[in-house]
């Protein structure tokens, strides 16, 4: 018996904002939506800091527009990233069910407000979404 193939699949996309200097604004965050991507279902955040584990909390404000600025998904949303050592419980996802238009842009900017963090860091935005299965349909 063949393995049943799903019409839709959930997958992650990683949007990396690199080289964030504490106290600065990082404009022009951009990702083109692939044709098979139908819904944006959730967002997770993570930060990596080269050279030293990020012990202190990283705090920033993220603004995201989807469908080439037709929808304002997040406006100055507080992004708080802790080191793994300080995490309690499970990392949860911010859930949505936003339809996406193919070949449009996910755009935004990020403002760091954690003045006490020393050194640059990279922010990874995990976009979790429903995709149409290209192989079987």
């Amino acid at each position, binding site marked *: *018996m*063949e*393995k*049943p193939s*799903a*019409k*839709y*699949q*959930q*997958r*992650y*996309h*990683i949007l*990396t904002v690199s080289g964030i200097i504490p106290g600065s604004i990082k404009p022009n965050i951009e990702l083109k939506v692939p044709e098979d991507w139908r819904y944006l*279902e959730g967002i*997770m955040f*993570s930060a*990596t*800091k*080269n050279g*030293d*584990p*990020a012990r202190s909390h990283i705090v920033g404000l993220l603004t995201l527009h989807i469908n080439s600025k037709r929808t304002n998904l997040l406006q100055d949303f507080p992004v708080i990233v802790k*080191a*793994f*050592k300080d*995490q*309690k*419980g*499970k*990392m949860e996802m911010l859930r949505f069910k936003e339809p996406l238009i193919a070949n449009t842009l996910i755009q935004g900017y990020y403002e760091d407000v954690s003045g006490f963090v020393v050194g640059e860091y990279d922010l*990874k935005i*995990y976009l979790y979404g*429903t995709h149409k299965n290209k192989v079987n349909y």
Partner: protein
Amino acid sequence: MATIDRKKKIQIIAAIVVPAANAEIEANNAFTDKLYPEVTGIACSIMAKSPGGTDDVIENSVFNLFEIDSDEVYPRGFEAKLIAMSRDQDVPPDDKFYSNRDKFGEIIPFNGNASVVNIKYKDGGMGAVGDYPYTLNVYLRLEKPNEEREKMMPRWMRFLKSLYDKWDRENGETVS
């Protein structure tokens, strides 16, 4: 003799020994237990020789490949700390697994064979010298579909359930 029909199994699908900082290790062709066709959760944990210094090694460590039956579960560069088991004692063990019933429900094989899991893990180089080598354990929570309960259902309920399952499979709605 009556046998205990276990519905759930936790399987260590890979125990990856990381010898040094920034090493990239593969664990290919690991098979799941074929008696449990549903993958309902994934988690990982780190076991190191030095107590207390184990949390730093997972910072910046990523999965460059994580697929079950050639279906991508996590993309290249997915950070391992996002699915790492919490050390918080207040969290029940079952809640430490990261699951999305819909997502992992889609990649189950119904043909009675085991699923093949391929993993490629890259260390982030954040651990101290004494932290290496350490072992990354990747756990899968496997479950059996509850066939007995379905057999006890009335016929009309089974019919409705089959319609719902078909609709769910085609539309990809999340069942929480």
